[in-house]
């Protein structure tokens, strides 16, 4: 249903956000 689709996309987007935040943090550690 539409509600499930929205929930899935929202979950996917927030997972990606977390992954990106960790990635940027790790990269900055190595750049120091």
């Amino acid at each position, binding site marked *: 249903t*539409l509600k499930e*689709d*929205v929930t899935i*996309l929202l979950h996917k*987007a927030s997972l*990606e956000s977390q992954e*990106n935040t*960790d*990635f940027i*943090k*790790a*990269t900055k*550690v*190595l750049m*120091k």
Partner: protein
Amino acid sequence: MEAEVDKLELMFQKADSDLDCILYRLEYEIKNNHPDSAGVKNPVTLLKELSAIKSRYQTLHTRFKPIAVEQKETKGHICVILNKTMTMIQELQKLTDMELSPLTEEEKTAEKQLK
């Protein structure tokens, strides 16, 4: 032939406006029979809101897809440059015979994470 086409076009236009009129009168009748009461919307309003949220979801989904692809590409590019940079540091270390401090725990974790 031209006249036939014009006639057909007029028929389609009339059908189109008749359908609009039917829909309008139907919606008007339903709104009259079930006026919005406190917290309960009439069926026509709900039908319109349903199609509104469907198209809003489509818009957001379309907006999200290219972002995810672009991020993947940029992260891949960052990893390539980081690897080249690390290799370059090792080469410079050999060239200058300099002793670099070993990676800290935090850096090791970060390196592992990026790998």
